[in-house]
């Protein structure tokens, strides 16, 4: 088993290295950062000097190697745009993204499961059918549009919620949180709904179909025959058994929520790492782009690694196959 885990980790490291290599080979197509860094009155000589200083005159493989050299020592370089260490900027921006992702994740799970169960139990009711049709909007409308729509309804027309930003934040030991202020909480609502809507509808539809499947099983029928209360059947017996695939999907969607935050953060000017990445692309801020892409791929590779290892524990067949069985 140890050999299996080590092999998986080796593969993960390889994937990371390849992601980095592809990223660095693409940076040249994003554009040239030099013009953004120098003013209107720069000369060709200034351009060459700065290019050399930043190591941009080197082939991308060399640039990549230098990045890796720094990265293994925990040094992600200095942002071209802000002139500050990238790790410092990422740490500063991470709380905003993580809080947003956490809130939208919880919203998606709680409402997704609740609505999924509801629509499964009242499968022919008007409300359930309405919810099912409405959920199509969540699946099909792009995040960008939903965000703009919410801003226009709740900020511009009704004036209830702020249209952008994070509101007031409180700094606790380097972690800036928006949970402790009224404006911070208000500012969370729209972006969290925008970001979580897709995941919510996904979970809801999944829970519904799993529930319908389970409710057809014999043991449910017997439970009814025993005269158990509907509530006990639905929530204690049926729901529990639908959760296995749901939890797997939730785990995989966790990464997606953080990665998809880019769009939501841009629409709401939410000061997280996704917005940082978009700004970095506009400015061709290579150190920031590289660090962000590596961070996201580490996250995805990490989640997949954990899932793989969990499978190893859960699924005995996997072990037999590896042992060279049938």
């Amino acid at each position, binding site marked *: 088993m140890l050999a299996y885990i080590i092999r998986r980790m080796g593969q993960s490291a390889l994937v990371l290295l390849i992601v980095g290599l592809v990223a660095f080979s693409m940076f040249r197509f994003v554009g*040239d950062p030099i013009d953004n860094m120098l003013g209107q009155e720069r000369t060709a000589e200034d351009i060459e000097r700065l290019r050399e200083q930043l190591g941009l005159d080197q082939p991308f493989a060399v640039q990549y190697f230098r990045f890796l050299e720094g990265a293994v020592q925990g040094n992600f370089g200095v942002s071209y745009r802000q002139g500050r260490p990238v790790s410092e900027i990422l740490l500063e921006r991470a709380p905003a993204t993580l809080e947003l992702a956490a809130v939208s994740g919880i919203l998606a799970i709680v409402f997704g499961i609740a609505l999924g169960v509801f629509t499964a139990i009242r499968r022919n009711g008007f409300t359930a059918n309405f919810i099912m049709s409405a959920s199509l909007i969540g699946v099909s409308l792009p995040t960008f549009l939903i965000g703009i729509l919410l801003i226009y309804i709740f900020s511009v027309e009704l004036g209830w919620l702020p249209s952008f930003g994070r509101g007031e934040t409180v700094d606790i030991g380097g972690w800036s949180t928006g949970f402790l202020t009224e404006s911070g909480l208000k500012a969370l609502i729209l972006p969290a709904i925008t970001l979580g809507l897709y995941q919510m509808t996904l979970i809801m539809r999944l829970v519904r179909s799993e529930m319908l499947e389970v409710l057809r099983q014999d043991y449910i029928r017997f439970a009814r025959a025993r005269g158990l209360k509907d509530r006990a059947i639905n929530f204690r017996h049926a729901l529990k058994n639908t959760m296995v695939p749901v939890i797997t999907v939730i785990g995989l969607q966790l990464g997606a929520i953080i990665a998809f935050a880019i769009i939501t953060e841009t629409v709401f000017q939410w000061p997280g790492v996704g917005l940082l990445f978009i700004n970095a692309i506009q400015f061709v801020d290579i150190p920031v782009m590289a660090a962000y892409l590596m961070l996201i791929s580490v996250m995805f590779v990490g989640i997949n690694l954990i899932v793989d290892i969990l499978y190893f524990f859960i699924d005995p067949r996997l072990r037999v196959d590896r042992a060279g069985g049938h």
Partner: protein
Amino acid sequence: MSRALTIAALIAALAPAVQAEEFTWAETTDPQTMDPHAVNSAAVLGFLNNVYEGLVRRDKDMTIEPALATAWEPIGDGEGWRFTLREGVTFHDGSAFTAEDVLFSYQRASNEASDTRSWFAPVSEVVVVDDYTVDIMTSAPNPIFPGSIANWMIMDSGWAEANNATLPDKESGNYATLNTNGTGAFRVTAREPGLRTVLEPFDGWWGEVEHNITRAELTPIQNPATAVAALLSGDVDFINPVPIQDVARLQQDDDVEVIQGIEARVIMLGFPHEADALKFSSETTDTNPFADVRVRQAVAHAINVPAILQTIMRGNAEEVAQLVSPAMQGYSPALAARPAYDPDQARALLAEAGYPDGFSFGLKCPNDRYLNDESVCQAVTGMLAQVGLRATLDAMPVQNYWPELRADNYDMYLLGWSPGTFDAEHPIRFLAATPNEEKRLGSWNFGGYSNARVDELLPQIQSELDDATRQAMLDEVAMTLQDEMAYVPMYVQPLVWGTRSNISMTQRPDNFFILRWVTVN
């Protein structure tokens, strides 16, 4: 302990804000540094004009007026300029402003590490005469020098030395990248790059206070739709810029006002004067038709600028025939007329030049640099096609655009130019002078336009002290550039700001937002 802290923070955050004239505004780009000498860009200098001050500054109508210097006069026959400094001025940290700070700021701003170095190319030496008198010596007479240093901001020498920031550090940053200590009307009280920057009035400011702001906050909002929504909902009091397509809608809203003006930026088409052949033509591969002045004139006659302004700019821009807008010093009023829109004449000129059936070529264009730049290029492509000039449009983000132009990968290109000195000499130096690395001339003259008479007149313009003689030379250059159609200037880009209607402010043509002219009613 930590709970007590949390509760204290909570109370502080929830406590009602002091009744005050708070002002929030949003711009597309965050100033990338707080160091006034590190980056020469409008976003940085515009913002820092509220915090730092120069010896001179620009008034509401762009005229030069005293700031940290109360008076200035030429020395001798133009060997330099003597500046008399304002007494009793203090920096935000309380230290006094003296001639030493001017000398220090000159050394800092003209250093190789500084992006503002080119401003001091004419300067040979800075001499401290006494605590409140400074002589800035120039290698040649320089009549426009005071006007060219309006954005040269003075930093406190003691503060910079104490914080290890005697030179700007663009690559890795230093204390001055995040902190400020100027003499201006506002001081920076909080700075979170990319998130928000907070300004509060400086009580010890020397000038007369016109504003009524007690606290101002700048938030960058990149997405234009979000910015417009923030303005409409009252979350911000001012946005810059307003997208052209939203102007009409905002004008209908009673709570919001749109302030429009003309920016200093002239949008023009450029040509590959030096190239031997077209690079993107399917049939004309051995000659360069644009080297023929008649072809360039045909381009000018083929473009219907009023139509572009009417449709794409929705009537928010002004056409122009020179490399500078009429608001600039040294503009030539006699040469105001653009070549008339006349496709027949364009066809005739092309036939005369030997291209009766026109030719195909490549037009390069940025798609995120100037207002509606790609749409303008599309319109230009369509108009040129009507006279047989078949352009293949290649539009790209600006980060990819400049490298393409530097590598000469174009047959025609779009360029916008805003003269940093607000003088007609500026575009001549950068766009019309023969490129010369050593003399730092023609650094944006991608096409390599070269005219011996223009090159001869430029140094004379730079050193001529008599206004009439200088203007005559500027007129001659403008006339030459028009006759030779070195560039095809099209229009001056509009400036569109949006505010809540309880705000009054002044819009300056350089697109600098000056906080001390803002009143919240």
